[in-house]
Structure formats: structure tokens, C-alpha cells
């Protein structure tokens, strides 16, 4: 993988992190939703670099196209039109911060890095080079081959969610 490609990847990673920060801490929910959009974009790029091109496409279509738009619709419907910048009442920040810094972060962070270094020790280094090879047909084969059951099983979930969402949202 050439140097410039790595720099671009790092840039996008930084983009993801920045937008994620905005999503959690920005007072205005609208800005948060839009920054979520950029976060999903960054993640899509990371998928590309990790050789999951089909996944990147799906990510862009489903997340950025579907979920974020859905969220924006929800914001529009739930806060009065002329008061777009829904002032988010300032919740007590102390507890979550404390929890994150001393509770979760150290565990997850140490776990992830520990796992990463352990994996790199066991898996041959050449494997890590970036070799772009289209994965779409592999995904297709897997879906209709080994993973046929989840592919079919997910339909029941989607059907249920569809009916439920419609029923819940329909005004009486």
C-alpha cells in the first residue's frame, strides 16, 4: 500500500472520529445527525481499505442513504418547525465522562490493542498488505451457500419490524 493511500486512510479515520465526537457532544440534534452522516462515510472508506468493497457500498446506501435520512425525518416531525435548533438540555456530563474515562475506555482500549498485537504475532505479516480483490462474488456465494439460513431467517425479522413500525407510527 503506497504511502499516499495510507495518509488518505488516516485522514478519513480522523474524519470519522471527529464526526463521532460531534454526534455525541453537539447540543443541536440536527448538527449531530449530519455529523453522523460523515462518520458513516468515513467508516465506508475504512471498509474499502479493508478490502470489503461490497460492504462499503452497502454501508453508503443503507446507512447514509436510509438511516440518516430517516433520523432527519424524525427530527423534523418531532420538534416544532420554527424551533429547528432544538436546544438540548445540558444533562450532567460528569457521570458519563467519568464512566468512560475510568470504566469502559481502559478496558476496551487495552483489550483491543492487546488483541491486535496478539493477532499480528500469529498471522504472517505479508498478509497485511493491501491487495484489492473484489469480494462481491465471494459475499454472494457465501450468502447463498453456507449462510443460506441467516439470509432466509432475517426476512422474518424484517417482516416483523415492518409490521410493527407501521402499526406503532400509524396515528389512530
Amino acid at each position, binding site marked *: 500500500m503506497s504511502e499516499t493511500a495510507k495518509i488518505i486512510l488516516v485522514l478519513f479515520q480522523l474524519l470519522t472520529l471527529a464526526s463521532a465526537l460531534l454526534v455525541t457532544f453537539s447540543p443541536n440534534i440536527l448538527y449531530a445527525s449530519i455529523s453522523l452522516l460523515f462518520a458513516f462515510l468515513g467508516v465506508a472508506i475504512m471498509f474499502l481499505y479493508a478490502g470489503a468493497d461490497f460492504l462499503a457500498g452497502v454501508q453508503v446506501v443503507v446507512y447514509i442513504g436510509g438511516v440518516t435520512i430517516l433520523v432527519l425525518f424524525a427530527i423534523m416531525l418531532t420538534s416544532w418547525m420554527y424551533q429547528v435548533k432544538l436546544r438540548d438540555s445540558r444533562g450532567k456530563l460528569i457521570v458519563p465522562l467519568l464512566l468512560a474515562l475510568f470504566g469502559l475506555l481502559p*478496558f*476496551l482500549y*487495552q*483489550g*483491543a490493542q*492487546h*488483541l491486535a498485537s*496478539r*493477532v499480528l504475532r500469529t498471522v504472517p505479516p505479508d498478509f497485511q498488505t493491501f491487495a484489492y480483490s473484489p469480494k462481491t462474488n465471494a459475499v454472494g456465494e457465501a450468502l447463498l*451457500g*453456507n*449462510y*443460506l*439460513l*441467516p439470509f432466509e*431467517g*432475517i426476512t*422474518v*425479522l424484517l*417482516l*416483523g*419490524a415492518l*409490521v*410493527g*413500525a407501521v*402499526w*406503532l407510527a400509524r396515528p*389512530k
Partner: protein
Amino acid sequence: MNGEIVQNLKLLSPELVLVFFLVVLFTVDSIWEQTRKNFVPLAVVFAACLLGTVATCWVSKTAPTVFFSGLVANDNFSAFFRYVFLFSCAAGMYLAFGSKELEKQNRMEFALLIVCVTFGMSLMAISTHLLMLYIGIETVSILSFVMAGFKSEDLRASEASFKYFIFGAFASALMLYGFSLLYGLTGSLQYGEIAQYVQANLGNMPYLLPLSLILVYSGLAYKISAFPMHFWTPDVYEGAPTPVASFFSVAPKAAGLAAILRFFLDILSYDAASGSWKAIGGEQLVSVVAVLSAITMTVGNLSAIGQNSVKRMLAYSSIAHVGYMLMGILTLDTFGLGAILFYIIAYCAMNFGAFWVVSIVADLKGSDRLDAFRGLGWSMPILGVTMVIFLASLAGIPMFSGFIGKMLIFGAIVKTPGLLWLAVLGVLNSVVSLYYYAKILRELWLEGREPGTASELSIYHGVALVGLAIPTVVLGLWFAPVIHFVERSIATIL
């Protein structure tokens, strides 16, 4: 290739039956528009469950195998849980159909949802693959968020579904993160391969395996509402319509337990000699699980004392019962785990019955507070007597199935050295539990006759109550065959 697929589909026939009846539900609803009013949805669901049971019997005859390329397993264990889920689906629909809380016109949606949830649950029970497990859990969770809020235009119901959603989504997200770490660590999603990896390098995973397992346990604990993840249960059960709450208190819990049993027993390498789990320092895990179950039990029982809403009280009591069931895991032999399965059967019957009575009273008196029960024993003897049977069984009075369940669990605990304190705590908890169950009995019978309103219990509900009371008593007296059945089903996964 297709011969193998046909074989796989044959082994999956109970689930397929459910899907088929989903389709039937849709077509019937769209063609015949007054199905909203009549009993068609009930009939369809009953047919689904009946046929599903037949399919399960037929399937359980074949030798236990792992099929669909290692994603799911078919053995007595899954057959046992399929029976439980189909039974509770039928009972849940029957109760919902008769209860006033769910208006007539949206029975069709309810039938659909309940069948989907049953499908999801059986997926959870039979899956031996992380992806399948995740899909199963998500199906059950997402659809239960909807079911929790099923009472239209009711603030409490929508608030219940909202809370359920936030807590549920968060817990399954954590579980997912745990799956990803586990995948990274072991390099595979299939239980068998994970187990081999864990078996291979036992000693040198001091930090990672505990972390991923704790995260996975968080998702599963949410499903069975065990200690750290039990906070949502009281609020959701109180808010949700009573039939939904009774369904929640029975079926998803059994599914969660099935997933826990299958997941932890397959993955953690169990050393028969020392009788402990070597993967993460045997005694460590045993004592942590023991402490967790003890806290669950005590929290459930103590919080239930001061309640005056019976639904909330039964919610806490269901948490307590989960605490008892968790205790069974510690013994790791057919006796202990068989005790859990027996306890599940007994628990389903008696808890469903208790909730059923609450829903009848809620329909009748409009409120589920304690004083709504005053003197009902005298005006509706069948309701009174069956409620006595259910509550006595929940409290663990002999001659009822609850006692046998508890006895088996405590027996298992007493058998393992060093856990006596847990047995003593469990026993004291059942005494405390008797106190708040007795408060309901006091209202029903002891407070004397309630003037007037000798409202008669409808046959519809009477049959159901007696139907649930009979197994509670029979299992209490003559439980030898059930023990054999339970032992057979647990042997396959140990």
C-alpha cells in the same frame, strides 16, 4: 448439493412450519376482511403451534447433528426448547385473544408478531453460530419492543416500549461488540471451532476471553433479566399490556437460558475431573456466577415486598426465579442442568397462571393493585383456588411443581462442596418470597367477603386456568417421567 439442502430443510421443519403459517396469516387477513373480529387469528396460531410440535417430534427422532454448515444444531436440547416456545406462543395468543386490553381489531398484528417472536426464539435455542444467535436475539428483542407498546393510545405502554428499546438495543450492541472481540480472538464464528481454539490455548488468554465473555453475557443477561441487566423488567412489565407481560416473563427468559446454556457449555472447556471450567480459572467463574445469581435472587425478592401493584410484584418475582435458575449452572453436571430445565417447565406453567389471574382481575376491576383482589376468592372460587396453587408453587410449598424445581436446584447446590452459603441464602429467599405471595392470598381469601359483584369467571379463562393448574400439581406429585425427559435432553449438549 441440493440433497444436502433438502436434508437441512427437513431438520429445520418446525421453524419452516411457523414461517408457512405467517404467510397463511397474511393471505387470510388480506382476503377476508372481517377476520379482525372473529377467532381466525387464534385458530391459525393454534394450528401453527400444533403442527410445529408434530414437526419437532418428528425431527427429534433423527440423530443429533449440527446442520446448515454448522450454523444450527438439532438435538433433544433444541427439541425441548421448541416444545416450550410453541406452548408459550399458543398460551400467550390464547390469553391475548381473551383479554380486553388488546382491542379486537389489532389481533391480527399481534398474532403475526407472536409467531415471529417464536421463530426468533427457536432460532436462539438451536443456533450454534454467533451470527445465527445474534439474528435470533435481535428478532426477539425488536419485536418485543413493538409488543411492549401494543396498547394503542396508552402512555404507559409506549413509555414501556421506549425504555425496553433503549435498554435492549444498548445491551445487544454490547453483546455484538463482544462477538466481534471473540471473533477476533478465536478467528471463527462457529461454537465448535471457538471451543477448539479455547481448548488449544487455555492458559494464555488471561484478559481477552473474560472481557469478551462478560460483554456477551451482558446481552444474554438482559434477555433473562439477570442481576446487572434486570432494571428494565419491572417498568416494562408494569407498562406493557398484561398478556404481553405474561408472555415476556416466560418465553424470552427460557430462550435466553437456552442460549446461555448452549453458548457457555459449548465454548468453555469443561474439565469433568475437577468439575470446573478451566478456561478462565474454574473457581473464579463459579464464584462470580454464584454471586451474580445470589444478588439477582435477593434483589428480586426484597424489592417485591413493598409493592402494591401485583404486576410489578410478579415482575420482581420473575427476576428472583431467574436467580434460582442461574444457580443450577454452577454444578455443571446432568443433575444440576437437568434441574434448570425442570425448573423452566415448572416456572412456565405457574408464572403464566399467576399472570393470567392478574390479567383477568385487571380486565374485571380495571387495576392490578392489591386491593383489587379483595374477596375475589369467595366470588370466583376457581380463580381463587388456582391462584392459591400458582402462588404456593411459586413460593416452593411441597405438593406443587415449584417445590420440586427448587428442591432439585438446592440439591444440586448442596451437592457441590463450598456452595452451602448459596443454598442457605436461596432457602431464606424462598421464605421471604412466601411473605409477598401470602399478601395476595390474604387479599383473595382472608380479608373476608367482598360485598356484591359475584361476577362469574368466563369458561374461556376457567379452562385455561385449570389447564395450567393441573400440570403444576401433577408435576409436584409425580415427576419421574419428566425427570427422564429432562435428563435425556440435557445429555446431548454436555
